[in-house]
């Protein structure tokens, strides 16, 4: 991952500050940086979103295409994830440099969305065993400013909320062969229910306290982090420990409680913003950048 080089003195400064519940930019241990979310930024897609979390910039595009259902789930559609760590973020990502990080993010996303309740994949089915909607979720990492996973999960949730899948009708003629008809009205579409889509909360352990939404400098001081996937109701769906250091069980339980609390708040704010943006409709101002 993109990292900064910090001197010992700077690390000590950050650690001592956090012990006194004061981070370098003045936040408390459970505060997020200012998050900017904008949906419908790319017109070629079925849904898109851009999230700016401090210096972290993520762009997600969702394309809905027709495909054949997987053999083990013939009555469901599915989601395919792809992450592109662009060289814009850091020159180390040029060529194939960003593939390791991209694979890690993709695997985490698959794990979160593997649980059945996240997205109603049965609604993506058109013809059992023959046709279904495949949602290709493409994540583009434009800038790395710490706390990638959180920003990516927020962007994915916003993009799925913004996705509009055209309604199709299946016509059967006398010989039994089926034809798929796309509705003529471009506004006639199905929307996805993203209530159960979870958000990732990364808690980094610095010194003897843990912080939410670590910047690059804080990540360089933390030995271990816990990645939690929390739904809007506060249920934990996935947990992963990152980093070289070790965590003792006490801290893990404390971090889980913090994660659930922070997660519920994050979900309510995100849903409020998405609904507000939706209600503005075409009159909203585009900050497109």
């Amino acid at each position: 991952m993109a990292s900064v080089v910090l001197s010992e003195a700077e690390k000590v400064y950050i650690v001592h500050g956090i012990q006194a519940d004061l981070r370098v930019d003045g936040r408390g241990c459970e505060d997020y940086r200012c998050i900017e979310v904008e949906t419908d930024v790319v017109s070629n897609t079925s849904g898109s979103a851009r999230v700016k979390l401090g210096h972290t910039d993520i762009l997600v595009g969702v394309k809905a295409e027709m495909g054949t259902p997987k053999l083990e789930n013939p009555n469901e559609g599915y989601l395919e994830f792809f992450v592109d760590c662009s060289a814009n973020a850091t020159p180390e990502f040029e060529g194939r440099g960003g593939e390791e990080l991209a694979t890690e993010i993709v695997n985490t996303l698959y794990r979160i969305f593997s649980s059945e309740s996240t997205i109603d994949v049965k609604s993506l089915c058109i013809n059992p065993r023959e046709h279904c909607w495949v949602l290709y979720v493409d994540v583009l990492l434009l800038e790395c400013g710490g706390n990638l996973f959180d920003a990516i999960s927020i962007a994915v949730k916003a993009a799925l909320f913004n996705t509009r899948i055209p309604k199709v009708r299946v016509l059967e003629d006398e010989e039994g062969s089926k034809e798929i008809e796309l509705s003529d009205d471009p506004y006639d579409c199905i929307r996805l229910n993203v209530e159960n889509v979870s958000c990732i909360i990364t808690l980094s352990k610095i010194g003897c306290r843990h912080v939410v939404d670590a910047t690059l400098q804080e990540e360089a001081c933390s030995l271990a982090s816990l990645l939690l996937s929390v739904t809007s109701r506060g249920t934990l769906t996935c947990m992963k420990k990152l980093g070289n250091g070790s965590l003792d069980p006490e801290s893990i339980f404390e971090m889980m409680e913090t994660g659930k609390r922070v997660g519920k708040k994050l979900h309510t704010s995100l849903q409020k913003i998405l609904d507000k943006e939706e209600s503005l409709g075409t009159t909203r101002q585009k900050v497109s950048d």
Partner: protein
Amino acid sequence: MAGLELLSDEGYRVDGRRAGELRKVRARMGVFAKADGSAYIEQGNTKALAVVYGPHEMRGSRSKALHDRALVNCQYSMATFSTGERKRRPHGDRKSSELTLHLKQTFEAAILTQLYPRSQIDIYVQILQADGGNYCACVNAATLATIDAGIPMRDYVCASSAGFIEDTPLADLNYVEEAAGGPQVALALLPKSDQIALLEMNSRLHEDHLEQVIEAASKACKDVYAVLDQVVRDHVHEVTTLLGE
């Protein structure tokens, strides 16, 4: 192509423009804090983002360092959701590699590389939405990003595409006009000295018409130059005001 007239009888194109008219160009500089220079440009529906790192020490193999000038390293990449049909690989395919080499060639002609021997300048361009004129939007964005990074250049590099239909040269083609299959010329120009950094032509064009088409492309490049120059001046004005000069 039946049913789709690229140039109507009254002289209007598919999107309502005139033959020599450019699409709306909007650009911003300094969009990323961490990069040395960055810029974002929108030409109609084509959106491109360029980021410049450098000049810095050679990364990777020291043997590739040039003893008397800087090495310009480019990468052209398209987001997988940028095109109408989803693209499987953002970069590494033939078209992207070819455009990467073109960008390198273009910027080596413009940047004063003799000032930075044994160092490297990285130019990374990302297409967020592709609607024709991808290469041209990239060059324009990369010019702004290089200026934002403070790297000295001979002149701005402005690029535009041009086509030829029904005896009329068209400037700044969009995706529909490019896909129609007629002749297309991509031109990268250094406007003040009228020097051509890159010229590329596809399809068949009678040589009598070539001069007209290049003229149309040059004029479009100079129009783009006017817009980019204004963007740079506004940005510098804003930055100096913020610094309190």
